[in-house]
């Protein structure tokens, strides 16, 4: 087995216990609620009869291990249970909302990379003005709370200029142009802070790389700076960028929750917030499970990409 394949398999193997632990945590959410979760869920509707029905339908009257096994068994069959208020299947409910959240996070990440990486590269080589500009953008982008930026964007582009709608959502499949219009402000909101992180990482990594002996060698060989920076230096400098992008994906998933609420997007984040307020524990569990799984898988993909891009991995052992 090549060292790279061994690395990838090792990372995949490490992900399994993480997924298991996460699923136990999510499963326990309803059981950790102080007092009787069913009474808390039902509130004033908690007649003894209702309590008994809901408890039985959620399987809360069975032993804990039993409950976990039947829940996780369902998850593997694609059955996440049911919303106890609307009686909708959770797989349908989440299936409708996941694409919205995914579109939002992926577009934001893409925009952040497209903006952050070139600016980071430019600022790494530049003089004082570029350094200050990069510093100001980084500190500003990181410090401004993303959802507040969202409200400011609504104020400027929707309320004052009337260019874009403040809220609303058209489906990507049916109305691609309307969708693009609706997604612009949310994506700008999420991507700004993200671009700041990517810029900072790119800049630091590029500066470090441009000082390495191999760059000096390429310069001595007479290569123009342009042919050094992108093909050689950026490739070497990309490792930390990949890692940060992976870590930040989780931050984006979190940020998407608030941004969906501000812009009224029918995504998973909005579903989670509504369900917490309704004490609709099964929906919270199902949504958290899906988002957390997504995050763990993305982290795995990041690590694998890191291993793939890193020429030192394996070379040292081979």
């Amino acid at each position, binding site marked *: 087995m090549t060292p790279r394949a061994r690395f990838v398999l090792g990372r995949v193997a490490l992900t399994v*216990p993480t997924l298991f*632990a996460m699923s136990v945590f999510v499963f326990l959410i309803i059981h950790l609620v102080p007092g009787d979760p069913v009474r808390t869920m039902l509130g004033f509707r908690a007649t003894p009869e209702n309590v008994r029905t809901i408890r039985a339908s959620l399987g809360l009257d069975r032993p804990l291990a039993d409950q976990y096994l039947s829940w996780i068994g369902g998850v593997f069959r694609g059955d996440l249970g049911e919303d106890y208020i609307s009686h909708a299947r959770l797989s349908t409910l989440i299936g409708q909302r996941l694409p919205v959240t995914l579109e939002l996070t992926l577009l934001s990440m893409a925009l952040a990379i497209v903006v952050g990486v070139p600016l980071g590269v430019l600022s790494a080589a530049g003089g004082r003005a570029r350094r200050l500009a990069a510093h100001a953008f980084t500190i500003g982008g990181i410090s401004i709370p993303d959802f507040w930026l969202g409200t400011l964007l609504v104020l400027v582009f929707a309320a004052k200029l009337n260019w874009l709608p403040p809220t609303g959502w058209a489906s990507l499949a049916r109305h691609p142009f309307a969708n693009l219009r609706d997604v612009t402000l949310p994506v700008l909101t999420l991507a700004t802070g993200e671009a700041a992180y990517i810029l900072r990482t790119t800049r630091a990594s590029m500066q470090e790389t441009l000082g390495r002996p191999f760059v000096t060698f390429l310069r001595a060989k007479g290569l123009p700076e342009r042919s050094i920076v992108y093909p050689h230096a950026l490739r070497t400098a990309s490792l930390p960028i990949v890692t940060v992008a992976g870590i930040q994906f989780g931050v984006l*998933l979190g940020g998407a929750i608030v941004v969906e609420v501000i812009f009224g997007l029918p995504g998973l984040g909005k579903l989670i917030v509504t369900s917490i307020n309704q004490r609709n524990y099964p929906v919270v569990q199902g949504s958290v499970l899906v988002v957390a799984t997504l995050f763990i898988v993305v982290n795995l993909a990041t690590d694998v990409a890191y291993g793939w891009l890193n020429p030192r991995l394996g070379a040292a052992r081979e």
Partner: protein
Amino acid sequence: MTLEASAALPRRRSPARRLAARLGSRETAAGLAILAVLGLVAALAPVISPHSPEAIDANRVLKGLSWSHPFGSDALGRDVLSRVLFAFRSSLLISLGAVALALVGGIPIGVVCGYFGGWVDAILMRPVDMLLALPALLLALSLITVFGPGRLVAMFAIAVIYVPILARVIRSSVLAVRTEAYVEGARARGASHLSTIARHVVPNAIGPALVQASVLCGFALQIEAALSFLGLGVQPPTPSLGLMLFDGYQVLQQAPWADVFPGLAIALTVVAFNLVGDGLRARLDPLGIAR
């Protein structure tokens, strides 16, 4: 020029310059200055606020900026400046409390794992890594689902997000310190593990954790604001910047000041903590362990 005169030259710098040099940079000094002012403002909120933050005034609903109400007034005619002062005080306390809790929880875990290594490390770091495997805000929301929304739950939830981050940072720096000659020397002299950790390991390994903690203080304010904005953090009538942002968003068109000023307060605080963090990083974290 005599030798004495040239040696005296560096001492001619102004006190402010010398302070800046000690702190690392002008940016750090600026960050500390902002934090000092903000801290003072938070502490003195009841004294310096021009009006009661709760005083409702039907004649001043959504009125703009004026001398008596420099930040305008909100949908109930309450003075936005006074509300920002009290909300900032309350949000800052939650953030500092969360980071303090996280330091108390994270440092022992990180130190023990880094110092002893082996199976202790393997067992203790499992749950820590598990917590890192959830997106931060999602983790907070899960805890709020369990315990219900509230100020203390928000603080606790932020602390739970931060414990694994701080534990990881301090573990890495303990790993770097553990093999130093002075640690071996202390052990060779017959010092116990506990005294070695307390006298040699922790003082030399704490730097990156402090850098990380100062940056996290600022972000705690953002998380608290996000949770309260969603209605899942601080509950009214307790003041909070997140709650103010929510109220402000409802009247964004008519009274943007009700949304802008609480947001600015958060952004300014995060900037200050970041500047201080960057300055501390240069001094306390030469290996770049803190993120």
